[in-house]
């Protein structure tokens, strides 16, 4: 049984088939990239997994559990974190509190305990802080710890979003175009971090990406999509050579 599995996943908007009977599987500990031209349905698949959209048909399994009907906030509780293509950070909060929201799925305290800030709440806060501090160190975010998001440069925000996802200690992380808008150096950093996430933190990565050099460097396997359908699956080189993929990108 695969670690994560999508079976015949479809998302139709009226007559438009954004995702059309897509099946794929992610093995534990691998980095799987989804590539495809604009409008191929890559981000839609992510939005299906994190339940922003309801699938028209098909099922999603994670750790042998059917998560198709789970409410969106429970997806994170199961250990699936994500980043967004167009950064979705909490603009008017500090980097630190953004990252602490990432810890939300591990918070166990009740409202009345928090109102009184009982010692248990304080102890929990310190545990959260320690974890967040580890992520800050992992992604070199120390200079920005107490800064407001509004006012930070785009590249940093991108990293903070990754950090927030990592703070939830996910088992599976969904990266929606991690390198979009980043310069060459920042993309290099990103590729190291994605590999380190896999090797050091043991996170399974599912990634949508346009930058083929990044895909080539980090991916264990690649899926190519077009018009909501899977064109090819395999290693980065195999997929890029596949005639259908070439046709999709360059025209037949």
């Amino acid at each position, binding site marked *: 049984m695969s670690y994560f599995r999508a079976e015949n996943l479809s998302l139709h908007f009226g007559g438009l088939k954004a995702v059309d009977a897509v099946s794929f599987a992610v093995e534990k500990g691998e980095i799987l990239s989804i590539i495809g031209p604009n409008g191929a349905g890559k981000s839609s698949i992510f*939005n299906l997994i*994190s339940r*922003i959209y309801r699938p028209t048909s098909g099922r999603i399994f994670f750790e042998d559990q059917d998560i198709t009907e789970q*409410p*969106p*906030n*429970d*997806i*994170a*509780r199961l250990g699936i*974190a*994500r980043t*967004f*293509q*167009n*950064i*979705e*950070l*909490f*603009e*008017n*909060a500090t980097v*630190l*509190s953004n990252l*602490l*929201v*990432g*810890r*939300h*799925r591990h*918070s166990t*305290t009740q*409202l009345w305990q*928090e*109102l*009184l*800030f009982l010692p248990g*709440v*304080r102890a929990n*806060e*310190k545990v959260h*802080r*320690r974890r967040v501090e580890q992520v800050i160190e992992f992604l070199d975010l120390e200079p920005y710890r107490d800064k407001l998001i*509004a*006012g930070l*440069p*785009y590249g940093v*925000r991108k990293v903070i979003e990754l950090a*927030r996802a990592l703070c*939830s200690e996910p088992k599976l992380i969904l990266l929606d175009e991690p390198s979009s808008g980043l310069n060459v150096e920042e993309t290099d950093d990103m590729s190291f971090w994605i590999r380190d996430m896999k090797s050091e933190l043991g996170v399974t990565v599912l990634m949508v990406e346009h930058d083929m050099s990044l895909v080539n460097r980090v991916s264990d396997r690649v899926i190519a999509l077009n018009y909501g359908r899977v064109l090819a699956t395999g290693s980065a080189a195999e997929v890029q050579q596949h005639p259908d993929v070439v046709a999709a990108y360059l025209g037949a």
Partner: protein
Amino acid sequence: MRFLFKTDYDDDIRLFPHSGYVVSYGLLLAALLIAPYVLSSYLMSQLVFVCIYATVGVALLILTGFTGQASLGHAAFLAIGAYTAAYLQKYNVPFPVYFLAAGVLTGCVGALVGFPALRLQGIYLVIATISFAFIVEEILARWESVTNGNEGLRVKALSLLGVTVSRDSPTFYFLCLAVLVLTIVGTLNLLRSPTGRAFVAIRDSETAARSMGVNVALYKVKSFAISAAITGLAGVLFAHKLSFISPEMFTLQLSIEFIIVILIGGIFSLHGAVLGAIFIVMIDPFLTYLKDDMPGVIAGIAATFGAGPATAGNVQSKVAAFASLNGLKGAIYGIIIMLFVLFEPLGLYGRWLKIKLFFQLFPLYKRATFKRQKIYVKSERNR
């Protein structure tokens, strides 16, 4: 300039980051504690209203400032708290019991209002809360067996531990102050724990909050309930302070006053609620002054500039007529809101921070410090 050298996670958690805070808030508390023995009874009465308005301001900040759900219905929550107190008092229920009962009941009503609000955003939510306020106002006027309709209800002086506490006594002031301080401390505690951060997350991006595991619906309802419950508690004190309540006290105008409290005080910090409450309570004496003394003063000025007695008298009556125009108060509120939104969106507290920084950095202060650049337009697709 002070540099904080943090060596412990507690440095970020504690409410007073350094000793300067302890000193200044200690002095403030001391001043508030000796106030009843120094200030005139008129100012004390105003101070009690400041405490009550500030409590409502904190409640509204939780909902509007931190969770991002605007409400123009807080006068209704205040009314429910006030009427619960007045009604239960008739059956000789002791103060602590009906005080808490008012909080619980208002909190439940707040949660009920929160449910339909889950599907509404921005201006639509404002309209929904206004309609809720109208419904409550109408119920208060019609449900005569409980509320005595438009005739209103008398509220007896409260008795605490067998002692009668008159609404003008220092004890009543201390009670209001204690409620305010406890509310502020509780809210600060909330804001530094997961619930408070979930509120802020919902305010800034519901999609991201959801993808981080925040149950958006649950936390919105929680925010409504907490905010309403605190307002209900303030309502009990409000009823006791006025000693008489009737439906026309809890109109849209009052809800707008509460919005002004947080808008003018500053919507991003609890300081704003207190500063805004001082502002709104003190604007009444100012308007009275405008009505009573302003015409004479202006006529005097006109006379010194060589206007004859006839002209001066004419000026005086014109100014007096203007100052007693109906709806002048509402107009002044409107102008104040507009000016603040345009020129000081961070409110009085934001202005105070700028003044503080000016002196800390003197002579290096630059205006651009507080300028926010919007460098990225957020996608609205996933709303």
